[in-house]
Structures are given as C-alpha cells and as structure tokens.
C-alpha cells in the first residue's frame, strides 16, 4: 500500500498566527514534529512509499524529512491546488499510485494510534467511503484491496482529531506527553518512562524535574528551577534561575527570564499564549520576559564606562597595525566598510585575525552607541527567522557573545547564547568575554 498525505494551507493558517517561526508540518507535538506522526501511521499501515502534498512551501519539510531513508521508506513531495478534490489528487499522482492500493490522509489532523497494535489490515478492507473523518479531513482507502486479510487480529482502533487551534494543539500535546511513550513512536532517550531528555542538556543540581516531562536538545536548566509536572521544553531553550514551568509548552528558541512562573501556558520566543482562552501576549523585549528587574541607570553608566575603557585600550593596541594595514587594504580595494570584512590575501587575513575590521566600530563604543560585547551587529543576518533587534537587553556591540563562545554567529541558537549572556553579564565578565572573542578570532582556522 502507498500513502498520500495531502494538507492544504487553509487548515493551518492559525499556526502562522500563533507560531510565525514554525512550519505547520514541523510543529512539535510533545517532542516530535507533526508530520512524523502521519508518516509513522502510514508505516504502521504497511506503506513503503509515502508522498506529501501541499499547496504551500515544502522546502523546509524536505530539509527535515529528506528522502525517508531514515524510516526505511521512500518519501516524495508534490504539490496540490487549493481547489483539488480527492479524485483530482489521485489523477495528479497517478504515476505514484500506480493503480494500486492507496491510503489518502487529508486535512491538518492528529491521528491517535497505538504503535503496539497492527494496522496492516487497512490494505485489505474493501470500502470506498472514508474509514475515519472529522471536520476538515478524512482517511480514505482507494484502489483494489490487497489480498491476505488476517482473520485473527481485528483492526486496532484509531481516530482523527482536527488540529485547528492553539487550544487543540495544547490539549493533544499534553495528552501525547502523558501517554506518548507507549502509544506513539517518540524520539529521545528516557532512562525512565514519561521523562525524555535530548542531547546537550545541562540541568543544574538544584533544579527539580517532575514527571511527566519532555526536554529537547541544547537546553539549559539553571539553578532553583522546577520543571514539570507536565512540561514540554523544546530545543535551544534556556530556563533561568528560580523559574517554574508546569503544565506548559516552551517552544524552540525561547529564553525564559529569571523567577518566572509559567503554569498552563505556551511560551514561544517573546510570546506567551493562554491555551484555554487563546489570548496571546507579545513582549517588547526579545527575551521573553526578563523578570521584574528594574534597570538601574547607574549600572548602565558603569557598564558603558568600563566598555568605553576597554575600547580605548583596544584602539591604542590596534592603532599601529591599523595605520600600517588600512592604506594597503584600501589601495587593494579589499577594505569594506562592512565591519564583517571578508578576508582576502595575507594582509586581509592578518587584519581579520587581529580584528582590525572592527576597528572603526570601537569609536562608537567610546561615544556610547555600541557596547564592546553583546549581540552581533551584523547587518545581513542569515537564517530564516529573525529576532527583533530592539529592547533593553539586545545590546548591539562590536563583538558578540556568540563569537566569544565560538558559536556559529548566524542562526537562532546564537541568539539564545547572546540573550543568556546579556542577562548574566557584569562589566568584568564582559571584559573576559571580549578577550575570549579576540582570541577565538585570532586562532580561528588559519
């Protein structure tokens, strides 16, 4: 049997509104992207060839799922027209279906199944009417039934539920967290049931973890936090000192500031959603919620002064090399006003290694417009999801904390590193981090 999974954009417009940075087909339910549940069900029903159809972009999904080789199936991608009905879907994929048995899943629905039961008999049922349906989608079997029905094992129960709002998303995620490890094929390692922890996760000794809980990759859980019961933490998340997270979902790439209490909420980036009413709150500062810390002006003044001092020292140290190399590079046309100069030639490489490309920016530190270290001030930021650059904690700077940590400067996980350090920085630590950034650039590669 083959499976066609056809999902029209009209059924998941709410995902764009609630989680703009997330592709709807990759939206995690508990710790697994939505589309993988459908693929798992297709596999349990005996499909070795699965095709995904959408009237929207599939590039991101293709990057995630690939050719299907990791599930041992052939996964292909095609497109549908928003007005297509089921017959048109079959016509448009005639070569794929090949006149054989095909299961068609339509709509943006969650299928509840049980991985310990068998769904292989779906290939043999002789019916043309949908075998399951809900508003916005169906499961239908088309084409001649395959022979070899097994009389002994009756078809295991399954059902579909529309995933049509933040409310249903929250409910299904929580149910999956509670029953998932036995019913669904969930990723991750769990030394004990109802507790899954991803790779590269740091949990402080004084943090408490209460089951059931699911934690993604690259997560930091800082001292005196309480995670759970019923907490789903995505990947690249920092939960700062003294927080408690229960009955809640923290979406990927979110920073939770100090001493916050998150109960029955969804936190995504700088947005907090109440899953019962659907009300959402978007904070101005890009770091969700920095706690009730009032920003003392004297502390800012102290930081600015120390940063300016450090910049002055660097200016003095770099002055001679700059005077020597700048005219040379300028003459060769290799000097770019873009601070992130591309190193070409020996002189260029040397200039970048000793961070001369940032030399002009140091003056801005002395005038207080930039910090010496903070968030990357890169003008052309790659990555598909951008984070707002304003706010009291996103301090544009000559060097970035990501550089000091030797983290890839592009991408959302660098943003998390920068947020974390921005909250925990002290002027003295900043100087240390600046030196680290300088050393990293000096020793990088060449």
């Amino acid at each position, binding site marked *: 049997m083959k499976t066609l999974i056809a999902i029209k954009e009209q059924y998941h417009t709410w995902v764009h509104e609630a989680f703009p940075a997330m592709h709807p087909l990759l939206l995690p339910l508990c710790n697994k992207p939505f589309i993988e549940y459908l693929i798992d069900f297709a596999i349990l029903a005996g499909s070795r060839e699965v095709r995904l159809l959408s009237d929207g972009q599939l590039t991101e999904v293709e990057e995630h799922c690939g050719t299907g080789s990791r599930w041992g199936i052939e996964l292909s991608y095609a497109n549908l027209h928003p007005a297509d009905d089921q017959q048109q879907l079959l016509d448009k994929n005639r070569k794929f279906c090949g006149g054989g048995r095909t299961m068609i899943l339509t709509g943006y629905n969650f299928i509840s199944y049980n991985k310990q039961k068998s769904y292989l008999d779906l290939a043999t049922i002789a019916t043309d009417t949908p075998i399951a349906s809900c508003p916005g989608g169906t499961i239908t079997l088309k084409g001649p039934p395959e022979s070899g029905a097994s009389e002994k094992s009756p078809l295991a129960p399954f059902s579909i539920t529309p995933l049509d709002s933040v409310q249903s998303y929250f409910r299904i995620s929580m149910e999956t967290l509670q029953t998932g490890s036995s019913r669904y094929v969930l990723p991750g390692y769990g030394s004990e049931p109802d507790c899954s922890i991803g790779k590269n996760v740091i949990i402080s000794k004084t943090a408490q973890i209460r089951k059931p809980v699911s934690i993604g990759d690259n997560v930091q859980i800082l001292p005196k936090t309480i995670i759970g019961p019923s907490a789903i933490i995505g990947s690249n998340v920092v939960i700062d000192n003294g927080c408690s997270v229960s009955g809640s979902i923290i979406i990927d790439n979110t920073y939770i500031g100090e*001493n916050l209490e998150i109960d029955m909420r969804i936190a995504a980036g700088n947005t907090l959603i109440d899953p019962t009413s659907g009300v959402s709150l978007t904070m101005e*500062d890009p770091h969700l919620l920095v706690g*009730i810390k*009032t920003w003392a002006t004297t502390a800012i003044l102290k930081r600015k002064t120390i940063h300016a001092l450090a910049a002055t020292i660097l200016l003095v140290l770099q002055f001679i090399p700059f005077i020597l190399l700048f005219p040379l590079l300028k003459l060769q046309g290799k000097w770019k006003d873009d601070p992130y100069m591309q190193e070409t030639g020996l002189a260029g490489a040397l200039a970048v290694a000793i961070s001369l490309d940032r030399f002009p920016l140091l003056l801005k530190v002395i005038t207080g417009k930039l910090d010496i270290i903070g968030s990357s001030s890169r003008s052309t930021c790659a990555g598909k999801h951008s984070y707002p650059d304003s706010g009291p904690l996103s301090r544009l700077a000559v060097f970035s904390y990501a550089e000091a940590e030797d983290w890839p400067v592009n991408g959302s996980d660098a943003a998390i590193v920068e947020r974390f350090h921005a909250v925990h920085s002290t002027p003295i630590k900043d100087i240390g981090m600046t030196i680290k950034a300088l050393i990293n650039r000096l020793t990088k590669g060449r």
Partner: protein
Amino acid sequence: MAFRLDTLNGITVGIAELNGRLVAENSTILQKTCSDWQQKTPFLVFDCSNLDFIDSSGLGTIVGCLRKALEKNGDIKLAGLNAKVAMVFELTKAKKLFSIFSNAGEAAASFAASPVSSKTQ
C-alpha cells in the same frame, strides 16, 4: 492618567485610571506621578480596565509604587485587569503581592472593610 480621591467611611482612597500601554518609554511618568498621589493618600487603587498592555518595566514600576505604599503603611490594589495584563502579573509572581479586584469600586470598598492593611510579602 485620571486621578480622583474617594472618601469612604473616613478613609481617603485615591483611584488612578491607567490607560493605553505601560512600557519602558512611559513608566517613569507613572513613577513620578505616583509619588505625588502618595503625598495625598497611601491608599491607592490602580484601575487597569483601560490598560491594554504592560511590559516588564511597567510592572517593575507598579511593584516599585507598591513598595513605597507599604513603607507608608498603605497599599495599592489593582482592578479590572484584562487577560494580557493579568498574564504578566501571573507570570512574574507579582500577582501574589497585590490584591486584585474585578472593578475599581470593589477595590476601593475593600479598603473601607479593613482600613489597616496588614499586607506581608
């Protein structure tokens, strides 16, 4: 920010109407104005029914006002929080510091019921 004084059972309660957005740009104004109000009475009600949005610095300011009120043996009570504003209070545990009422009238009346607020943190 409209402000009026109500006298109930011999207690003067100041009712301040906060409106629009209380964020970093304008929270210092509240800080200054609140000290003026507290010159008149230590018992204040912040009527938030027209307050659409509050961020962490706005919240910090309100908590600061409360601290001053408590120093003077007064209190600040909140009324009419919308869902978004309420969410900020819950999230930051600041909810535990305040008595919250559905409307300004109830909040003011509660001062009359127990004039000497023995609020502890």
